[in-house]
């Protein structure tokens, strides 16, 4: 490692319990600024739970999560968003009846600074800020190549496009840290390649730190700066992609213990 970067997101000893069941057990990891960090693991390993803890939808039973000096452990989701953390959901949580533009405009909520009285009059401040924001939204639409779907209700778009809108909406929040929960699930190869290109562009051009949950090992190993592996709510490995993929515990978690090894052990 060339230099130690100041870590941005710090997860320290987080335990999440649902009525006696530990979804997460003593998970600690750090996400340095500007990196793509992937969290992998078998289904039900607790990846999304961890993301929910970070983004404020769950509050961890024990442990601490900090981001740039802010304590996220007890913060509400909208407060976490205010700190500069945006999230794209695994199961599309878009406003289906609204158009793409309207969905993205919603993400500008915290960037608009006018009062309800300005809204009622819609003159001067409100009108001007709305126009500026529309311009911002259009830049994101440009960046995510959604121009032709701009005015369509999101519910009518193809699944792959909806996934892209989900990422675009998170990006419109102008975050410092972007949490992507399986942005490529259910996509074909071409769509995956597009999405990978977008993720790399987001990181390189805009300098946004990315936490990625993904099942496609090829993608994860290719684009990640750092990989963490969760299994049954416990962190079993973490490090550079090459180190992680060679880790015997990781191989065991994914493929199970080979039969002859079991036989030898028994």
């Amino acid at each position: 490692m060339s230099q130690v970067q100041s870590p941005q997101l710090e997860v320290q000893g987080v335990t999440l319990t649902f009525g006696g069941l530990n979804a997460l057990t003593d998970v600690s990891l750090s996400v340095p600024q500007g990196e793509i960090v992937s969290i992998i693991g078998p289904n039900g390993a607790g990846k999304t739970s961890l993301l929910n803890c970070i983004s404020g939808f769950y509050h961890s039973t024990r442990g601490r999560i900090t981001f740039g000096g802010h304590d996220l452990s007890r913060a509400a989701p909208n407060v976490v968003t205010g700190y500069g953390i945006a999230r794209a959901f695994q199961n599309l949580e878009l406003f289906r009846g609204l158009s793409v533009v309207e969905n993205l405009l919603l993400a500008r909520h915290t960037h608009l600074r006018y009062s309800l009285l300005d809204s009622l009059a819609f003159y001067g401040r409100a009108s001007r800020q709305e126009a500026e924001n529309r311009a911002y939204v259009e830049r994101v639409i440009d960046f995510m190549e959604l121009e032709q779907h701009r005015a369509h209700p999101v519910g009518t778009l193809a699944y792959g496009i909806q996934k892209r809108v989900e990422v675009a909406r998170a990006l419109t929040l102008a975050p410092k840290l972007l949490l992507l929960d399986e942005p490529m699930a259910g996509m074909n190869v071409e769509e995956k390649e597009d999405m990978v290109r977008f993720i790399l562009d987001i990181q390189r051009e805009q300098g946004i730190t990315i936490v990625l949950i993904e099942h496609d090992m090829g993608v994860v190993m290719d684009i990640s700066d750092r990989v963490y592996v969760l299994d049954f709510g416990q962190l079993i490995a973490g490090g550079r992609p090459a180190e992680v993929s060679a880790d015997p515990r990781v191989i065991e978690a994914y493929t199970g213990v080979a039969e002859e090894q079991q036989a030898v052990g028994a």
Partner: protein
Amino acid sequence: MPASRFTQTGNYRTKYQQDQTIFATYAEQLSLIVLIGLLLLLPLILPKTMLRDVNMIMIYAVAVIGLNITTGYTGLINIGQAAFMGVGAYATALAATRLNLPFFLAIPIGGLAGALVGTFVGLPSLRLKYLYLAVATLAFQIIFEWGVGHTPLLAQGGAISLPQVQVLGVKATFFNHNFVWYYLILPVLVVMGLLWRNVLRTKHGRSLIAVRDNDRAAAAMGINPGTAKIMAFMIGSFYAGIAGGLFAYFQKAVVIEDYGLHISIQLLAMAIVGGLGSLPGSFLGPLFIVALDRIVGSGSQWLGSLNIFPAGVDAATALRPLSFGLAIVLFLMFEPRGLANWWRLSRLYFKKWPYKF
């Protein structure tokens, strides 16, 4: 540039600010101005009894816009809108009789009182959703009626009469009461409608719709769902309070019966028939429900004149609630998007008529 700004069919906008406009073409803008102009002439041709109904429709329309804000746009079922109207009415009555304030101050005080109480009643919405919240607003309706009935200051629900108003030298009397109030209610309705239309194109309007559609995602967008819900209750009950203040003056007195549970249900019916979450629907709903009631009323008078019922039986007592209920059921079954959808479809038809492309 399009050939004409009145009939343009394409999108010729070059600035985002132009995209914010409410009306797509000058023709649409002009049609609204013409409509308001015609409405200004309406009292000159309408018979007096119908003018009274039109006034009532307009006041209910203000309350229904408010109900649409909480229930239609934000998705918080509110079965206490009449009680919020009542809060406004009583506040207006007290301001007018105890403080001797003129009507143009007393009615806004009614609105503010409604907003204040609405904000407080909206607090359960932080914890409750859907039907459970509806029951909480129903509880407020009951508490309101009981509370008024036990407060000597509010005449225990009996009549508190309001003074007649004087506008621009014209004194409202027994003979021109409906006429004068028509010209006072119409501008209030137009302004209240425009204000809400403005809010709809800003972050505040969007945040309410976001909370209705998906409050998890709304929170992830940095919107505080609790604040949005409280705001919806605050604005919605402000509209109810203004409507209540108008109704108090319009009825010349405040009586608890005007703000009972059945009125809340009626307002909800107006919102549903008009189309939940639609501004044109907020005008069409009250129009439909009041007109239906009057038509059924005169229809049963005709039935009575046929002498097929025993003497002393009025068909209206049965037919009015029956037709009211039937209308709601039929709308829920066949046109859940309400009259606003018919309005939308007919506009779409005329936009392309005869052969624009």
